[in-house]
């Protein structure tokens, strides 16, 4: 009895040590790839730093004062929100629609399910080159086709004027990333019990009612995760927008990621770029907390 009493805490301590040992690699990797860059960004943000040398002076909160009082950050934040909301909405609509279609017993379903993933697997650089060619005013298929159909008299400036440029990047973003929604939603659709639809039919529900009352409630959880993930990824999207418009015309499509890039590498101001990055992270944090709270209440 007394021996058991003595051994139990020892055993617990041994298990505790083993637990620490087992989790240590994860903590180490997490610290290296998340915590260190985060702290480094915060540290850099209070300096004025010339990017190529990473040398500079301590400037305290000056970079944050410029962030708060200048219009660049807020303008880019607005652009980022428009882009994120626009492309995410289209991704969800197209993604759910395509998943519903591919869930039906249609011809060449397997082939279609494979092909629909194509944009997602395509390199962004290649995709952008293709789209820039399609949008080209002189030899682009888009203008040529629309002019042949009589919809346009003259070629349209797709990427160099507003609002066309924003619409263009939103459309290309939706095309590139909607397959992610298709994959996730299709997987969930295949696990919805058929008897729920049978019960709904017996109750007289038509296709629309079955979609809203059976399918959508079943998709809610997976859509929550998709929206959360895609919102984060779209918010920090860089390459697609940079390659399509470079942030122009003027700064109409300059998202926060592009602003950070220009500040860090165009102007060689790494400190100010780090301050913008920290601001960007805080905005994402606020949205994530709000969203998680809301979805928590709903569930």
């Amino acid at each position, binding site marked *: 009895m007394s021996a058991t009493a003595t051994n139990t805490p020892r055993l617990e301590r041994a298990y505790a040590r083993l637990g620490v040992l087992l989790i240590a690699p994860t903590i180490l990797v997490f610290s290296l790839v998340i915590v260190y860059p985060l702290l480094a960004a915060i540290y850099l943000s209070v300096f004025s730093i010339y990017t*190529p040398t990473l040398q500079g002076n301590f400037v305290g909160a000056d970079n944050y004062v410029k962030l708060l009082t200048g219009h660049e950050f807020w303008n880019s934040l607005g652009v980022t929100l428009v882009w994120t909301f626009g492309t995410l909405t289209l991704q969800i609509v197209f993604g759910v629609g395509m998943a519903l279609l591919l869930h039906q017993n249609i011809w060449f379903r397997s082939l279609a399910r494979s092909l629909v993933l194509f944009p997602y697997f395509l390199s962004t650089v290649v995709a952008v080159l293709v789209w820039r060619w399609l*949008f*080209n005013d002189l030899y682009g298929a888009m203008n040529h086709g629309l002019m042949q159909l009589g919809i346009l008299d003259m070629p349209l*400036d797709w990427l*160099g004027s507003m609002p066309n440029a924003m619409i263009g990047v939103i459309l290309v973003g939706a095309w590139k990333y909607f397959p992610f929604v298709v994959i996730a939603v299709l997987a969930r659709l295949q696990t919805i019990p058929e008897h729920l639809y049978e019960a709904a039919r017996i109750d007289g529900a038509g296709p629309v009612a079955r979609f809203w009352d059976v399918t959508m409630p079943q998709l809610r959880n997976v859509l929550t995760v998709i929206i959360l993930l895609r919102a984060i990824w779209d918010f920090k999207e860089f390459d697609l927008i940079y390659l399509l418009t470079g942030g*122009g015309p003027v700064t109409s499509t300059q998202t926060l990621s592009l602003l950070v*890039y220009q500040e860090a*590498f*165009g102007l060689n101001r790494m400190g100010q770029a780090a301050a913008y990055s920290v601001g960007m992270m805080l905005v994402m944090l606020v949205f994530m907390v709000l969203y998680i709270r809301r979805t928590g209440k709903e569930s």
Partner: protein
Amino acid sequence: MTSKPFKTPAIPRRTVLAGLAAAGATAAMPMRLSAQEQITLRWWSPQSSPEQLAAYQTQIRNFEALHENVKVVFEKTSDEGYAPQLAAAFASGDVPNVVTHLPSFAVSNYWRNGLLAPFNDVIDMIGQDKFYPGANDIYEVDAGTYAGTSIGNSAANVIWLRTDLMEKAGIDKNPRTWDELLDACQKMQGGGIYGAALPYGRNSMTSLIFIGVIHQAGGQVFAPDLSVAIDSPETRDALEFYRAMREFCPPGATNYTWGDSLTAFVAGACATGIYTGRVLTNVAEQNPGIADHITCDLYPTKSVDIEPWTFNDFPSVMIPAQAPNMEATKQFAAFLFDPEGYIQQLHAAPGHVLPVLKSINDDPAYQDNPIIQKYSAEVELMSQAAANGFNLGWESRDHQPNTMAGEIVNSGVIAELVQRVILNDENVDQVLGETTARIEDIMAG
């Protein structure tokens, strides 16, 4: 007891020790040699057309043949991407050995921040007397020391003209003034052909071309003492001209970069173009039907009183100070001007990168090229214009070198000026005031 007679050892102890030392040294020697054999030099350039890459390979092969312990690796960068790539390289210390074809103002900026090795040795290896007179002045940011040198010259804003369309429109001479150019564009536009291919995008091309237009109006971005001078009547005139030209450019010119503008002229979609001599190669390869109907000239100015101003980005050669194997690096940098490889490199895009060595320009091997021979007048015009050219890092012979020119171009502030006034129709006075403030802010560091 018989004592053995003392015998001198066959191999004395000192000999043995000396032998051991020699053996040790011999054992160590292959390692030193081996280390020498493993020298790898990294060469970066944003100029990497297939023909240029082939020329680079010739230069690399020839150098490696002369230096068996050296391997040279070529790595591509780009006009829009070199700044972040080099920033990362400098910050990490993992730098290339030689960087070529960047504009001179990038070199002066890196030099001013202590990131480059002095280039005097390399210039001496090439031979000071072989360069065109004054060719290296732009790299003398600090008196007596060169930050780099030019690997060539370029005349980036000559006007390209379709002579067949001019003839059809009844235009008997190349436009010399803006009014003549506008008139010519109006006459030649139509039937699916636009008058011009000027850029209006938010990119470096728009910035660099518009800086030229300001000078063609008689203005300047900076005064010789580098105070900001962009807010001037001349800039307003330049904006008015650029706005007037907009109606003669394709709709997508609002997003044009160098490649788009070049293609628009080469494809035959525009009656005039603005580019370097790369037009010649591209027309020969991609649209030979117009090859007999193209010519180039200095870009028109506001009036005949104003001298043409040619933008030369002075494609450079520079060596990062942190580059390993400095001696071999300098030898390679100098070897880039070896006639065989250098001429092949220049022939890769005849007229695009023009020789910076007078000795090469006079070399029959350089002149022995079908494009250079066919367009000898155009190549000569570009050579002369480029030799007297300037850029934002050095706006005139009176100007101090501007080591912040790269940041100003990369910031897009001048391209945004064009877009805000011409595309967005914003108030010129307000935009110019804000542009001045932004440039001053960049200059302040």
